[in-house]
């Protein structure tokens, strides 16, 4: 794969002195889906806004397929579609007019066949002559996507695409994203929802306090940082962990009737066999055994909490 978007040491300090981006560097490969995770105020939207032209960077460069977003902004911007976080639409326009407007604004000649296919893909074709104000929230969000796709962009930015969207619609949105990826569109999305990144992203970037903490292949990230826990339910509650178990990283659960053992799935020895033997030798009766894998959310919380606030 080759890079389609290259961000180099991008910094943004607002007029009030707030440092929203403190030198972000990132390369995005053609055709991938990158999810940017981060708490509120982490700099996700500033990053997207700077790439797309709504915010002027303080320093640093961004190139889109080799075109600098400042010096060669026309070529760079023509390749980008942006779906903003807030629903922003002219309320009294019809769906089709507002989508056609977007295509024209990006300098593309009218193409009714393309607009029809975009609207059909987003289940909006039946509503094409409806005024925006008469649409539901979910439909409005899809109109924003249709506008962003109207000029056939190669990169699509989705700023919190499923914020405030119900579960069924969120799944629909994920399907739409998968379809776009199949069409070869590179997608960068920001989200609060870890499960969203887990479900659709190829790579995950974690951003907080204006810094990119890490960018990694999702599977690798989960494998590297993923820990597994085994929880053993005891037949009878105990007050303290027996001394014979001291060599294991075991914690006593609440109420004293369970033991929690954390291990690395990639370690040469997980230590599970030894633990179980030691439990039997200590004379503890096991009632039940459960295993849990840490999710991206746990990894994310660990990373963000590890940062000085």
């Amino acid at each position, binding site marked *: 794969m080759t890079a389609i978007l290259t961000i180099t040491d991008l910094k943004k300090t607002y007029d009030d002195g707030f440092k929203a981006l403190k030198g972000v560097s990132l390369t995005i490969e053609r055709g991938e889906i990158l999810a940017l995770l981060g708490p509120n105020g982490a700099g996700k939207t500033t990053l997207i806004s700077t790439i797309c032209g709504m915010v002027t960077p303080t320093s640093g460069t961004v190139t889109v397929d080799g075109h600098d977003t400042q010096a060669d902004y026309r070529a760079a911007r023509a390749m980008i579609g*942006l779906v903003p976080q807030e629903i922003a639409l002219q309320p009294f326009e019809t769906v089709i007019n507002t989508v056609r407007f977007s295509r024209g604004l990006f300098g593309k000649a009218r193409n009714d066949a393309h607009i029809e296919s975009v609207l059909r893909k987003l289940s909006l074709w039946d509503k094409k002559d409806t005024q925006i104000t008469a649409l539901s929230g979910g439909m409005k969000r899809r109109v924003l996507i249709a506008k962003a796709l109207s000029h056939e962009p190669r990169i699509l930015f989705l700023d919190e695409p499923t914020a405030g969207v119900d579960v069924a619609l969120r799944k629909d949105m994920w399907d739409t994203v998968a379809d776009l990826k199949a069409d070869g569109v590179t997608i960068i999305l920001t989200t609060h929802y870890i499960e969203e990144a887990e479900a659709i992203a190829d790579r995950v970037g974690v951003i907080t306090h204006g810094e990119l903490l890490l960018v990694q292949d999702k599977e690798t990230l989960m494998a590297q940082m993923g820990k597994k826990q085994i929880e053993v339910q005891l037949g009878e509650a105990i007050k303290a962990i027996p001394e014979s178990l001291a060599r294991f990283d075991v914690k006593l659960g609440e109420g004293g009737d369970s033991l929690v053992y954390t291990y690395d799935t990639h370690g040469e020895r997980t230590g599970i066999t030894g633990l179980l033997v030691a439990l039997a030798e200590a004379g503890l009766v096991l009632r039940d055994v459960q295993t849990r894998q840490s999710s991206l959310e746990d990894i994310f919380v660990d990373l963000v909490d590890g940062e000085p606030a």
Partner: protein
Amino acid sequence: MNWTAIWAIYKFEMQRFFRTLMQSFLSPVLSTSLYFVVFGAAIGSRIDEVEGVSYGAFIVPGLIMLSVITQAISNASFGIYFPKFTGTIYELLSAPVNFLEIVFGYVGAAATKALFIGVVILFTAQFFVDLTIAHPLAMVLFLLLTCLSFALMGFIIGIWAENFEQLQLVPLLIVTPLIFLGGSFYSISMLPPVWQTITLFNPVVYLISGFRWSFFGLADVPIGLSLLAIAGFTALCLGFIWWIFKTGWRIRA
């Protein structure tokens, strides 16, 4: 130049106008008729004629200017303020367009609407008074420049305004008084000498005087000065808009 983008903005703005065509068309016809009834009939019965022109005909250029200026400002300011208000301005800022193209689109549409209304008023006036236009080319030029320059000014107001109240503030508190005191309904020569001098500081005087000259061949101030004033005003607005987009004032963080 991204002509497709300019055309897209222009067409989008004009669609808004055509959606409310009856209102766009009827309101200038009605207000012009009212002005003729009130000013033409009531005051006109006392002022027979001004410098050889019947009072009814004399006020036509001023009436056109009054509507054209207010319409150009309100259409252009609303046109660019509304995307700021709804948030859709993100699209303009992220599109492969430069400031001139955005201005051409919005200001062009606002000027077209103002021009349309000016022409409607001109035709409506024909029903009330006999009108002859001494210098038709100059008349068209003045009308076009007025539509354009005040649409530019409206655009600036729309960018500057942070709420609907501010959007109305400049037209209401500055522009309308300047138009009324700029000789729309009287000749400067009818004022006492002191006020004649003070009035000359009102830029609208030069516009209305020039425009009236194109109809009747008589002017309060030299025609060259009128042309210079409107050209200077257009250049001033263009320069200011260039600065807005260069610095991103009120639109880009």
